[in-house]
């Protein structure tokens, strides 16, 4: 009977361990397949083509060039490797500027013919039209329909997923935003967090501790929207006045809010680590004539280093992955930040803000999954590097 019971318990434990691992693997696999799908997507919107005059010898364009052309930032073919002639752009909605209703036909049945002839007679034209509309024998050249390339995504400096004809999925600004905000958040949180942890574990009286500790743990339970709200109402206006900024929503506001959010975890974990430093070590140090502060700096902190670092990592993890509060206070401008007082945008905020409007299965949707994968890697790298650092401490306690 007892054996049977133990077998059941073991079975349940094994099962739950197995299921959990499987779920985690599935999530990761799902992220990866969805994210990798981005690189199979055509650069230009599905079903559309970019058609040129037969004489034009430009055969391929990058997404950024396409966007610049249609934004009229590039106005001459020689800027993008063609002959010296002005560019005219053509979108379907322009068709009535060139043709009368009679020419197009009452049911628009001649529209393909018209556009084909228009392209044939204007040497500098680039037309963005549905492929099915143009007759198969149209006298036009098509821009090669390449897929979205790795370099466009990972080295691209513009994130513009709704641009037509070619959306831009450069993640550099988002990556920079995320790292920038997290870095500053840690820079703010670290000195405060460590000092409070040292204070709580070494200086505060038992009474003080019994009040402070629950309060700090309570801070951990406050939902991040509330922190975001606080940031929006208090920190953002304060920064705007303090630094004389056009807008207060900025990376700095984000890092301050994140620092506040990371503090409770950092403090409690680091404090627990320091308090668990054996009394015998403290006594040994004091008995050698070390002062209390020497003991803290040279014995207590070094011997609880692995606990302190895990506190810091948990804090960083929160900063890197935090969505709501950052979304509310950073201003969400997808530009590469040059200073911390500019608006910027982080990866999680982008995913949260855009997933709702991205059609499932489309390039934009897959790009957001790719962002998820990247986020996953960032946290993975942070965790592993810290693991590595703390494992290098040769003088571990037993």
């Amino acid at each position, binding site marked *: 009977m007892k054996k049977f019971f133990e077998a059941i318990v073991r079975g349940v434990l094994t099962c739950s361990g197995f299921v959990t691992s499987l779920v985690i693997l599935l999530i990761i696999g799902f992220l990866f397949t969805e994210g990798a799908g981005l690189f199979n997507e055509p650069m230009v919107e599905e079903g559309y083509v970019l058609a040129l005059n037969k004489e034009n010898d430009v055969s391929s364009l990058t997404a950024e060039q396409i966007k610049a052309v249609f934004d009229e930032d590039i106005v001459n073919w020689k800027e993008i490797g063609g002959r010296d002639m002005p560019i005219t752009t053509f979108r379907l909605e322009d068709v009535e500027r060139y043709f009368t209703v009679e020419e197009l036909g009452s049911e628009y049945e001649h529209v393909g013919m018209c556009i084909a002839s228009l392209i044939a007679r204007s040497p500098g034209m680039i037309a963005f039209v549905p492929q099915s509309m143009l007759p198969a024998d149209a006298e036009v050249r098509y821009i090669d329909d390449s897929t979205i390339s790795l370099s466009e995504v990972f080295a691209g400096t513009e994130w513009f997923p709704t641009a037509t004809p070619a959306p831009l999925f450069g993640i550099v600004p988002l990556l920079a935003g995320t790292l920038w905000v997290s870095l500053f958040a840690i820079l703010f949180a670290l000195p405060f967090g460590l000092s409070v942890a040292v204070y709580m574990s070494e200086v505060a009286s038992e009474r003080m501790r019994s009040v402070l500790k629950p309060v700090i743990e309570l801070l951990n339970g406050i939902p991040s929207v509330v922190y975001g709200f606080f940031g929006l109402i208090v920190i953002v206006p304060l920064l705007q006045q303090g630094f004389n900024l056009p807008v207060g929503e900025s990376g700095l506001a984000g890092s301050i809010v994140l620092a506040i959010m990371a503090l409770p975890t950092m403090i409690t974990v680091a404090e627990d680590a320091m308090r668990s430093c054996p009394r015998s070590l403290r006594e040994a140090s004091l008995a050698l004539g070390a002062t209390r502060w020497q003991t803290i700096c040279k014995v207590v902190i070094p011997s609880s280093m692995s606990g302190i670092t895990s506190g810091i990592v948990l804090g960083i993890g929160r900063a890197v992955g935090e969505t709501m509060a950052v979304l509310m206070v950073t201003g969400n401008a997808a530009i590469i930040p040059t200073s911390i007082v500019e608006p910027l945008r982080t990866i999680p905020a982008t995913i949260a803000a855009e997933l709702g409007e991205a059609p499932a299965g489309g390039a934009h949707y897959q790009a957001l999954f790719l962002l998820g994968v990247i986020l996953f890697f960032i946290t993975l790298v942070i965790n592993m590097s810290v693991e590595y650092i703390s494992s290098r401490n040769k003088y571990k*306690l037993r």
Partner: protein
Amino acid sequence: MKIEVKDIDFYYGSFHALKNISMGIEQNKVVAFIGPSGCGKSTFLRLFNRMNDLIPDTRLTGQILIDGKDVYAPKVEVDVLRKEIGMVFQRPNPFPMSIFENVAYGLRVNGVKDKVFIAQRVEETLRGAALWDEVKDKLKASAYALSGGQQQRLCIARAMAVSPSVLLMDEPASALDPISTAKVEELIRELRKELTIIIVTHNMQQAARVSDKTAFFYMGEMVEYDDTKVIFTHPRKTETQNYITGRFG
């Protein structure tokens, strides 16, 4: 007299742990504290270097003089005092540092910067603790790579490095095997030439082997304090007699 204890009473909260203790200890002597568990030996020992200051809600009356100076006088700087009075604990408690740094620690926290001097002092004290030959090739290794007995000798070396004039040892050999114990006892006999030693022990033979004088404690009182020979051969009090012959405790 190196150390004079006058009318000590000590309380943990309302618990009267030490009752009216007075004794004198001469320079370069080894004094053993014996007595059943919970009789207050550790409490008493920790009064000499003010380790009990760390425990909240304790109270002391009476005086302890070392070299004629009151240990508990208000102007005494505790860290200076503790450098003068070394301590070795019951369990080896090396720092999570290298062997070298463990011994150098006391010098460093007391402001010694001279690297050559530190290296010299580390070697000297490790030799003094009969550990040098075993560790001289791995000074940079973690102290936790040593055996328990080696760790305890390292802790003795660590305490000796700051040149104290008194060494307090709280059951220094209780966690060690017989061979390591013999080495520690040998060490105590050597160290006596340089300083005054107070050692707490549960091991009667050990007290008999290493000490010049022995104090027997019982329920917070010092029952008898005399030459070790006298205590172990002709104790005056029956409690002492019973304890050393193993009839209670």
